[in-house]
């Protein structure tokens, strides 16, 4: 089981917190499990987790070559978006209105996937401007990439339920159609 853990210091707009994600097996698709201390971190964790699926074993912009394969460590480096210093940084604004909080997370990831497909960019950071139970306004940031390691067709609503545990941490599992 692939297991990534991320703890990162917040920018000035956000409070202290952390998230972690791991990829779970599924017969045909990919499941991503995220836990986070805040709702905002849950969205950040989902975005970073999705970026890790998309960028798995893909060489960064400017380094791709036919039939060349980077070691699996490249995935981790890519998520940090540090490997290709010359790669173009892309920022986009997203506004999503949804039925409820569960749908909001999926709809947000769907918007990101569309932008990923159009601009060939792996987005892995976000600055949330407004988040309610059915509305999200955020800026996302990512890096241009020549090749994706894994093409995601869709983030699905299948069995998705955001839950809060006794310590107040949020948890969710998202199924991606790949």
């Amino acid at each position, binding site marked *: 089981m692939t297991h990534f853990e991320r703890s990162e210091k917040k920018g000035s707009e956000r409070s202290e917190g952390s998230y972690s994600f791991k990829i779970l097996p599924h017969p045909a698709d990919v499941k991503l499990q995220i836990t986070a201390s805040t709702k905002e971190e849950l969205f950040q964790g989902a975005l970073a987790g999705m970026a890790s699926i998309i960028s798995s074993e893909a060489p960064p912009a400017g380094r791709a070559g036919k039939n060349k394969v980077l070691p699996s460590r490249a995935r981790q480096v890519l998520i940090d978006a540090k490997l290709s210093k010359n790669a173009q940084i892309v920022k986009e604004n997203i506004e999503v209105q949804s039925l409820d909080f569960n749908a909001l997370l999926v709809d947000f990831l*769907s918007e990101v996937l569309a932008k990923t497909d159009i601009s*060939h960019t792996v987005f892995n950071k976000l600055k949330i401007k407004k988040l309610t139970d059915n509305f999200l306004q955020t800026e996302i940031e990512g890096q241009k990439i020549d090749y994706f390691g894994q093409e995601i067709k869709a983030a699905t609503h299948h069995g998705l339920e955001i839950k809060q545990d006794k310590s107040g941490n949020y948890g969710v599992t998202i199924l991606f*159609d790949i």
Partner: protein
Amino acid sequence: MQKENLIKINNYLWEIPQSFRSDMLVPARFFANEKLMGGILKDRSLEQLINVCTLKGIKRYGLAMPDIHEGYASPIGGVAAIDIEEGIISPGMQGYDINCGMRILCSEYSEAEIKDKISKLAEKIYQEVPSGLGKGRKIKMNMSDLDKILERGAQKLVNDGYGEKEDLENCEAGGFLENADASVVSLLAKKRGQNQVGTLGSGNHFLEIQKVSEIYDEKIAEIFGLFQNQIVIMVHTGSRGLGHQVATDYIKEFMGLMDKYQIKIPDREFACVPFKSPEGQRGFRASQAAANYAWANRQMITYYVRKAWEHVLGKKTSSLKTLYDVAHNIIKLEKYKINNQLIELAIHRKGATRAFPPHHPDIPAKYQEAGQPVLIPGSMGTTSYILHGTKEAEQSFYSACHGAGRTMSRHEAIRKVQGQELKKAMEDQGIIVKVGFLSGLAEEAPAAYKDINEVVEVVHQAGLAKKVVQLKPLAVIKG
């Protein structure tokens, strides 16, 4: 699900009675033999099939083909026939890759005649057809041309010189569905589709150079123009980002309308509205437009494959002919007799290939005696099959399997199978491998799939379609 809950109808057909769960509107039926049953009971595919049986307007049975495996909403391999007067339309019941499907191109050459050119041909096809992950074509199509593709599919490209009239004759629906409407496809979906006509995509999508390795039915093989050791080219892809976005858009919209129409579903991915509602009609026309985009995609790939073929074998060689092109993720209007009344149904197929019988009005004149060619790919590097439609398949609303069906997750496959070793093993079998990333190769390893021979045997024995020829890969091209 326990085996004792199943009713054995015959050696290849099983039923879950309507009484099994109170919200089932019809019984569930699936095709499998004892050997495949073990795998089917291991995952949640039968639970998902039961969920299909709760869809409003479903007729006869919720059905699944022998390559059934767990997905989301419907299992992969699911078929739901929905009465358009009283029932719903559900994009999740066809999947995000609208009109993912198969096309086979036939050459007039045998393996012996061009064996020394196969490697060069594979390399040239790999160069001509963008197959990498997220790779599009360099030129973006203008929106006006894209709208025409959405409404006229492969026909638009053939009219523009990217194919032959015969390509359309030998394509499901003649290469386009008339109910398509570009105006109900979102701008976001169109932007995603602007540079992806003529691209394979990733995952299980591939292009293979194959040879006819075994003939089961000489007479029908001859009607299909197939002969022993003949070189053919198989294309597997769909509607790319445009189709994914159309499904995403309408699942989101329909989810917000469930209360309005008082529809209850066991999984949000089934999000649906009445087929005849204004929203349902819009969703249907958008889905048909995405299906047209997929036919155009496979048509453009055909154009580039032919270009590669001419480059390697010379311009004087005869052109590659389209044997057939058929979808396995789609919503189609088809007429069936239900309670002695001929009614129009919205057939939702998610990982199931349409398999029309002989004398069906919607198949080409030259296949009237044989039935529709049914194109079934095996997992990468293994055998594939061409079958023909039969009248017995009315029991499955003329549907057959769409492939082998996965048994192992992609990530598990990547962990267990070394891409480099798999490549070598395939090359040791004489298969040329052109692949962007070895992880992409590993996740499609044959070990991650059911045995295609077993799956096709069930299709054959159950009468859903009958075997005509077996195909063996000589070269695999994928992202």
